[in-house]
């Protein structure tokens, strides 16, 4: 069983994300065979021309959306941590939407049930397509590792140059 330490999720690097929304297009196409960002599981926020970031489900431990559902329509996969929606039980009441701090679970524009990122069976299309390589499919532990390596590299820029 995957723990919160090893579960991989979709993350966007704020340094790299340019807000183009290719992830939204490819997600909606992969899941619903249509070009429509409203059907995307990942969403881009552009607050200003210089402030852009894509946001998707972060696979919280004891996910608040699951806890908030009064109809037990949501469950969290023990294996991957993704949120599973029982479309027969969900009536689109939106308690889960209120409970999510990240806006990562949304009401479907046509089906009137909620939907969220399912990681494309471990091969997320958005990560594959991101033209800026700003998206990563990664666990929180590895994310921290990467951040550490980046910062150390930055500190030792000159030394790395000499090493070739």
């Amino acid at each position, binding site marked *: 069983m995957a723990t919160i330490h090893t579960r991989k999720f979709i993350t966007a690097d704020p340094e790299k994300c*340019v807000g183009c929304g290719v992830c939204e297009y490819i997600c909606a*196409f992969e899941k619903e065979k249509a*070009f429509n960002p409203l059907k995307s599981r990942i969403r881009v926020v552009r607050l200003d021309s210089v402030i852009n970031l894509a946001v998707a489900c972060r696979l919280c431990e004891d996910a608040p959306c699951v806890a908030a559902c009064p109809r037990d329509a949501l469950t969290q996969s023990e294996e991957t941590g993704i949120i599973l929606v029982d479309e027969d039980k969900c009536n689109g009441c939106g308690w889960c939407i209120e409970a999510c701090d990240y806006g990562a679970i949304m009401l479907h524009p046509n089906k009137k049930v909620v939907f969220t990122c399912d990681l494309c069976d471990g091969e997320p299309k958005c990560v594959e397509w991101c033209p800026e390589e700003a998206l990563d499919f990664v666990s929180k532990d590895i994310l921290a590792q990467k951040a550490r390596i980046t910062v150390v590299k930055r500190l030792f820029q000159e030394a790395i140059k000499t090493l070739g």
Partner: protein
Amino acid sequence: MFGYAGRILRINLSSGRVRTEPLREEFAKKYIGGIGLGMRLLIDNSKAGVDPLSPENPLILTTGPLSGTIAPTGGNGHAFVAKSPLTGGVGEAKSHGFFGSEMKRAGYDAVIFENRAEKPVYIWIDDDNVQFMDAKHLWGKSPQETEALIREELGDYYIRVAAIGLAGEKLSRIACIMNDRTRAAGRTGMGTVMGSKNLKAIAVRGTKDVNVAQPDEFLEFVKMLHERMKGPATTKYRTLGTPLNVLVHNALGALPTRNFTNATFEGAEKVSGEYLNEHFVVRIVGCSSCAMRCEHIAVVPEGPYKGTTVRVEYEPLWAFGPHCGVDRMDAILKAMELCNYYGLDSLSTGNIVGFAMDCYEHGILTKKDTDGLELNFGNADAVVKLVHMIGRREGLGDVLAEGVKRAAEKIGKGAEKFANHIKGLEMTGYDIRGLKTAAIGYAVSFRGADHNRHGAYGLDLKGTVDRFKVEKGRAKLVIDIENLYTIIDSLIICKFSRGTYYDGFEDLAKYYTLATGMPMTAEELRLAGERINNLGRLFNIREGFTRKDDHLPPKVMSTPIPDDTVSKGSYITQEELDLMLDDYYAARGWTREGVPTLEKLKELGLEDLAYIVKNKLKKESGKRKKEVN
């Protein structure tokens, strides 16, 4: 329909009547979308001689068959078309960002704004629901403020807005229409037409699917373009961006400086793309669905214009920089930001400021005319002040807001000699005195002075041809690019992506077919490009344009380049211009007066527009017979 939404929305701003009409497949294939579709709708929905600022001049907004799809750069474009208040001919301007894709998702290939609203309004297009909203509280606000206020008042952050600023409201003829804060449908005064309709803004939210005919093949094609966009064809746009041109043009003696007095600029280093990237650019962002990302966002870190934030491209940088003799980047960026704020075409505005400086240097304008501003070339702070005056139409700014051609007429005293425009549209940042292939494209462009209708400067700058020579056969090269560029603007893909369609029309035809399901061959698409170019010509002929209107700016034909550089001494004579035009008209299959023949119209499937040329052709053939006798 695939690719297309299949609907045209017609909004009568006077009566409040709103209706949709179907977009016929055959019609769509013939005119593609964007400026092609827009110009055809303009011809069909306006009468000859219509006053551009009267209610009878429709403002047409179009998307393209790729808008709203994942097509890189194609997914996000839109165009405005109307009779231009600057040129009196066809006006058209494209923009990218996020607005066009939203419009497509709302389900429209085109929106025709007819007539004039009694009082300021904005139109709220919420999928099928179209509402007229009071815009009293938005009047006087900048496009950026308008965008934010509309989102707040309608309570939806994802609403996209295209709006005019003060310039459009005050019917400045160089007003643009802005969307997504920093993007502009800039040229030919489309914001002026919008202002004349009391239309402050168009707000749209679209939630519908956009479907393509062959989705899997389409995606494969897009994936390939993504790879190409990471390659050398787009390196320029991803690194220094178009400001790279500054030093390139300067080295080649092709950087118009001080209103075309010189062709090299001693301060070029300080206004170069290199300097800009190092000191001012904080981030490079992208439009919806684009894999390239080109939008260089610059922030002024210190000094009197600290905090100025603006997207930078070469043309406005040139217009407020070298063209005004200004080498202070902070002031240039401020002037550009102000253009966004007032909703002014930054290219035309910079051109006009340079013109005013030239007049001042020659004593045609004095301190009395300028409210004390010392408009010497190089006075960076005066440039910023004058942009404020143009935006608000205060003092001299009121005259200058009329565009360089009309301003020169009003100022008189020989100011016309310094007014660098073609057909009334202000000149752009290529010194065509020494770029004589590009000069052909500039002279004949249907929207006036423009590098983007033909891109023929590429042939000159890359040395494909001898750029100082005028010779027969050159026009054919220009026409090939013109036809391609017209298709680029009709599909509405971005010109920055042009290098990624390795097989030109072949690639684009495939793109079109995969999206729409309507089979299109490369030759059919080339023909559509030719058709749309003829369409622009026909509109202008209908409005009374003749060979005389295919002219070049006065300085280009009067002032040899004085600088000690490769282009020294170069300029264009009347004889050379005549040779260019004869060559061009012949290659286009037009008469010596530049009128498309009936045979040409038939070949292009434009027989129904023969009424525009019939009398002119008769007159010309009569005249020729007389000459022969």
